[in-house]
């Protein structure tokens, strides 16, 4: 299902995301689901192999979690420290309370210098803010320079994964897109050739850019600088060439010290792609001569999440995507099915905080298997938070009367063992005498593809009473 993951609300509010329906549509193509699932599982396996080579892996995770919790619990101090040092380094520092303010700041920086061509490297934050459509509506040409992002940009879709934006596309589909927009021959789908064309195409854009915008993987309070990790070198080409560099970052990305980078960087690429490190880990501590370097610190709901005792741990996220790669539901439903900028398990604990009604289905897009929690390099208790978001969703009333009534009915049954025994016996008897086709129907969504268990003659309780006598 190709659609932008960010929707501009036009009239009224966007419809609530129905993950189950989107997942059903995705699964209709079994072969494609298997292909998508295998591709992501392969990345999970690469992560396992890389992690196994780091003897202190679990200790690193514990450290990373503690450093992040420390930083978040002192976030105002570190933000102030970062700002002071960044200013001393010759950067300009802006603050944005929400997406709109961020977008307006970026536009103003561009308009102030008459910049009309912007080259962007990957920033999930700017996706979240809907920056691209805003700038385009204001006459700025925006080119996403990360290859995966460029592909989905040309297709007018949103990224389906925060690290591998085009993971949901086959090379044939990429070839079609390049044929339509970059003039490659029809039917050309060979990745090296396609990447070569993209290199030429984007090289032109880098050279012609009036400004570049990057995200930040980490902002370092102690030094007033920031780190950008890429494999393609696209962020660097933007930064090395454009006269204006804007770096947008969510306030939760600030870490205390330079030495802390070692902990996170040893975890990041291994968790994300199974590489020991990304090709480029760029540290920026000031503008080039004659260049303007602007930092935009963005809240956009982060302080609200920070205030949530049950969910602030989700702000530790370093955007590695490992939870998506391991999640059996993400792999079989694709990033777009979550209808949010950040999908998968972390998306399902971050996004409900922005709009609980709209994203009420996301915490339920999970079996709570806990694999995400086990791979998270900063030890976010993802499955615990998913469980707690479910309670918040139901408390807020974003559920159906049928569901509530059936839960209440089942609770009544469980609280009355005598009644339960009778109901159970009836159900088993019914299953015994019911034709299979009727049993399937009665079993509802269960029965569409699964048989109900064969009905035994007596319950265990009945057997126990008969054979072991009543014991209290």
């Amino acid at each position, binding site marked *: 299902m190709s659609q932008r993951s960010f929707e501009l609300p036009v009239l009224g509010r966007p419809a609530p995301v129905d993950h189950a329906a989107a997942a059903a549509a995705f699964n209709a193509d079994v072969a494609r689901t298997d292909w998508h699932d295998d*591709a992501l599982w*392969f*990345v999970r396996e690469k992560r396992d192999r890389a992690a196994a080579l*780091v003897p*202190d892996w679990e200790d690193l995770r*514990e450290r990373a979690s*503690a450093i992040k*919790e*420390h930083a978040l*619990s002192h*976030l*105002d101090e570190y933000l102030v420290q970062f*700002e002071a040092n960044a200013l001393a*380094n010759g950067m300009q520092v*802006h*603050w944005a*309370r929400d997406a709109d*303010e961020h977008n307006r700041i970026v536009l103003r920086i561009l308009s102030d210098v008459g910049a009309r061509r912007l080259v962007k490297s990957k920033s999930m934050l700017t996706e979240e803010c809907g920056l691209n459509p805003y700038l385009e509506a204001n006459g700025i040409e925006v080119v996403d320079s*990360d*290859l*995966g992002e460029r592909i989905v940009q040309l297709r007018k879709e949103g990224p389906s994964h925060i690290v*591998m934006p085009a993971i949901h596309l086959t090379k044939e589909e990429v070839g079609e897109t390049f044929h339509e927009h970059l003039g490659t021959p029809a039917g050309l789908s060979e*990745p*090296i050739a396609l*990447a*070569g064309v993209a290199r030429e195409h*984007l*090289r032109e854009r*880098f*050279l012609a850019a009036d400004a570049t915008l990057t995200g930040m993987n980490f902002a370092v309070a102690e*030094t007033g600088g920031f780190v950008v990790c890429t*494999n*393609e*070198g696209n962020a*660097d*080409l933007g930064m*090395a*060439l454009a006269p204006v560099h804007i770096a947008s970052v969510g306030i939760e990305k600030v870490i*205390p010290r*330079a*030495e802390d*980078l*070692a902990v996170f*960087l*040893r975890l990041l690429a291994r968790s994300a792609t199974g590489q*020991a*490190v990304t*090709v*480029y*880990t760029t*540290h920026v*501590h*000031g503008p*080039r001569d004659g260049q303007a370097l602007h930092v935009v*610190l963005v*809240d956009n709901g982060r*302080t*609200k999440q920070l*205030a949530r*005792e049950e969910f602030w741990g989700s702000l530790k996220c370093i955007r590695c995507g490992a939870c998506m790669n391991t999640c059996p539901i993400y792999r079989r439903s694709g990033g777009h099915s979550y209808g949010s900028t950040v999908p998968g398990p972390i998306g399902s604990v971050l996004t409900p905080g922005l709009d609980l009604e709209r994203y009420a289905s996301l915490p339920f897009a999970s079996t709570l298997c806990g694999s995400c929690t086990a791979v998270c390099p900063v030890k976010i208790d993802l499955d615990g938070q998913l469980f707690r978001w479910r309670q918040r969703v139901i408390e807020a009333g974003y559920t159906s009367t049928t569901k509530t009534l059936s839960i209440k009915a089942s609770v009544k049954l469980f609280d009355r063992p005598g009644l339960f025994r009778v109901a159970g016996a009836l159900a088993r008897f019914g299953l015994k005498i019911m034709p299979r086709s009727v049993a399937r129907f009665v079993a509802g969504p269960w029965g569409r593809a699964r048989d109900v268990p064969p009905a035994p003659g007596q319950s265990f309780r009945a057997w126990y009473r008969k054979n072991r006598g009543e014991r209290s």
Partner: protein
Amino acid sequence: MSVKEARDAILHAVRAARPPAVAMPVARATPVATADAQPSMLDAFVDASTAAGAAVVLGERRDIARLVTGGVADAANVLSTVSEVRATVELASDPHALDSLELFVCSGTLGVAENGAIWLATSDMMQRAALFLATHVAIVVDAASIVPTLHEAYARIDIRAHPFGVFVAGPSKTADIEQSLVIGAHGPKELTVIVIGASALQTP
């Protein structure tokens, strides 16, 4: 105007929202690197660098010119910060002029054994641009400068000393098209790592 307003509002919100203080974890005990660990660190570095797609060669300073230009035949367009290799390009002040650079040769400060990365930092923005615009990049690094992990690396470098610093591990790459690895994304297509001084590491 509203810059102060937004700043104050955000900081106020953070102060009101932040969870109870969590202590910074105690610094990890760093294993002391011994001189005779160096040859195996060199091996680890070479392996990791190769795995990242770099062509790694061992040699001495006098070999640099041969090793570099031998690998890039007919490199007419060369920029170098290494005295052993002569630049052919005039350094202008505009990095855009380096677009057709074929080869950039430079020195790295240290290497990291666990991931094959080399640290370079500079205030010279032409060098920075060359590192990404050149089709081929060669980096010279001293075997004695190889450290085990990023922990040791950060202990030795001052990331604030220059406006630009980077850990480089391999040539640019992407797997964004159906997970097929393509070497040479937007940055260099090839990276040659020249490790000098390996012979000096041999334990007598």
